[in-house]
């Protein structure tokens, strides 16, 4: 826990206290906006003007679309936003294909504005919603706050204007109950991020990144342990971050959409994509899949639309063949699940229910864990090597024993905790509230210990790069 984290915590407290004592809604709005822009400035001062410019442009463009809902106008506005992403996010990735002229090399070296993929997708959803005739009519200040809202501006959850703006207009809702609820979310988030950083730091100086840096022939056990390590690192990292920011927003009285719902417990790929990075998944569903799939009536086209939508999902992360393949793989798995459901429709069930559920869970888990190869590998040949080792039984273990134990221990601990949670009735809201008081305090103490003493070795937040 760094000094910077404490400074941000103090800033949240100041904003909460100011908003609590203020009875003026416009004053609160401007306090939130000033705090949000200051937060963004503190993280990436260079690109605050870009965020403000994008907010102002999209605000006026949205108003124009509302007055003249023409499809050409909508696509022109969408194109401007996609072009913004293209310049900052995709051109640098396409560097090897660009001309060697100094201008293009300059463009290719542009830094990525913090959270640009997240707030640009929020801007796009606003334009689409205005075209659809959404009733929400934000003011300029409300729209700028929606775009730059401190809890979400860095890495989501990707919100919709219809969800946030009414909350900006409502009376201050940061009660003691919401502070307590939010604080619990923050603790759990910090705990999850700490687990992610333990996987990054590893054991004896050997972490997940070192496992992926191994070259030479990998054994099957090597491949699955490193994929498990990465799969849980990215989950703890991003789900923990999401829980933390949702908690901070809750403390201030705001309800943000959930981003993760125990995705590794899914018993189908379809269910996984309703529980992993939900705010992006639902964005893709609403603004890519549905318009595309509804444009033709044939069933095969729905399958194609699903694959295209997941390819867009993959490319949202970065313009690389591996992310494209990762998206296509997920799309094909979704289509495969759909076809399997159709095939089995009306057929007698095979085996007892617990066996069917267990087999479905295991298959889903393996399919998803295997897919992290394409997400994390450093190139096509690297990915091919990992996939070959994972799928063709090969003896040998290159990974250090301490790292293997750390990964397997955390994975087993995660599933054991989920099993425990599922067996204890939820008596009160809050993630740890089902635990008896001493156990709850032990958890908070453990999180604090790990956050202070282990996270110091940490690497950065994975999703910040997107």
């Amino acid at each position: 826990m760094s000094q910077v984290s404490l400074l941000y915590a103090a800033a949240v407290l100041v904003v909460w206290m100011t908003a609590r004592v203020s009875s003026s809604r416009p004053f609160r709005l401007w306090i939130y906006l000033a705090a949000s822009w200051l937060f963004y400035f503190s993280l990436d001062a260079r690109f605050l003007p870009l965020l403000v410019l994008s907010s102002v442009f999209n605000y006026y463009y949205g108003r124009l679309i509302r007055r003249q809902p023409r499809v050409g106008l909508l696509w022109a506005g969408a194109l401007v936003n996609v072009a913004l992403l293209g310049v900052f996010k995709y051109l640098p990735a396409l560097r090897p294909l660009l001309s060697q002229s100094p201008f293009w090399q300059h463009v290719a070296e542009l830094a990525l504005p913090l959270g640009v993929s997240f707030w640009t997708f929020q801007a796009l959803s606003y334009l689409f919603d205005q075209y659809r005739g959404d009733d929400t009519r934000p003011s300029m200040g409300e729209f700028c706050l929606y775009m730059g809202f401190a809890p979400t501006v860095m890495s989501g959850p990707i919100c919709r204007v219809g969800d946030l703006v009414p909350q900006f207009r409502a009376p201050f809702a940061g009660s003691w109950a919401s502070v307590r609820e939010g604080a619990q979310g923050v603790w759990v988030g910090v705990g999850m991020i700490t687990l992610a950083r333990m996987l990054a730091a590893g054991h004896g100086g050997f972490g997940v990144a070192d496992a992926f840096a191994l070259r030479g022939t990998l054994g099957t056990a090597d491949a699955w342990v490193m994929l498990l390590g990465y799969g849980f690192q990215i989950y703890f990292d991003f789900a923990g971050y999401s829980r933390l920011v949702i908690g901070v927003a809750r403390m201030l009285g705001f309800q943000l959409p959930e981003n993760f719902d125990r995705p590794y417990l899914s018993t189908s790929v379809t269910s996984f994509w309703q529980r992993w990075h939900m705010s992006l998944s639902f964005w893709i569903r609403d603004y890519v899949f549905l318009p595309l799939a509804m444009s033709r009536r044939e069933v095969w086209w729905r399958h194609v639309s699903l694959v295209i939508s997941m390819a867009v999902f993959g490319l949202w992360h970065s313009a690389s063949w591996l992310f494209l393949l990762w998206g296509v793989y997920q799309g094909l798995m979704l289509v495969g699940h759909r076809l399997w459901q159709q095939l089995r429709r009306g057929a007698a069930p095979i085996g007892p229910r617990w066996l069917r559920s267990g087999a479905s869970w295991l298959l889903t888990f393996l399919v998803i864990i295997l897919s992290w190869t394409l997400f994390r590998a450093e190139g096509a040949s690297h990915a091919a090597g990992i996939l070959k080792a994972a799928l063709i039984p090969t003896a040998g273990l290159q990974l250090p024993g301490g790292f293997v134990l750390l990964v397997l221990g955390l994975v087993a601990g995660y599933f054991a905790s989920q099993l425990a949670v599922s067996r204890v009735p939820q008596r009160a809201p809050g993630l740890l509230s089902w635990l008896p008081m001493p156990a709850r305090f032990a958890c908070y103490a453990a999180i604090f210990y790990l956050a202070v003493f282990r996270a110091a070795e940490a690497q950065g937040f994975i999703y910040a790069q997107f």
Partner: protein
Amino acid sequence: MDHSASHARMIEYLKTEILRDPDAEIEPHTPLVSSGMVDSFSLIQVVQELEKITALRIPASKVAPRDLDTVSQMFATATRVGMPR
């Protein structure tokens, strides 16, 4: 076709073709999409059935899942954005 008959026809379609459970309890205000009962893939079929029942064409770019969350909302949306076929 009157209002309630249209609703009843859609509810019957949802039970038999989408959920495949004739005993499912669906009322005009039962959340279908937000509750996970109807997934995005099945929603396409539901929209096609809605077009059939209302004899309207529903432009893809004008609807969002939240507009189709309940049977009542589906017909309200069809009235709002539907165009004669």
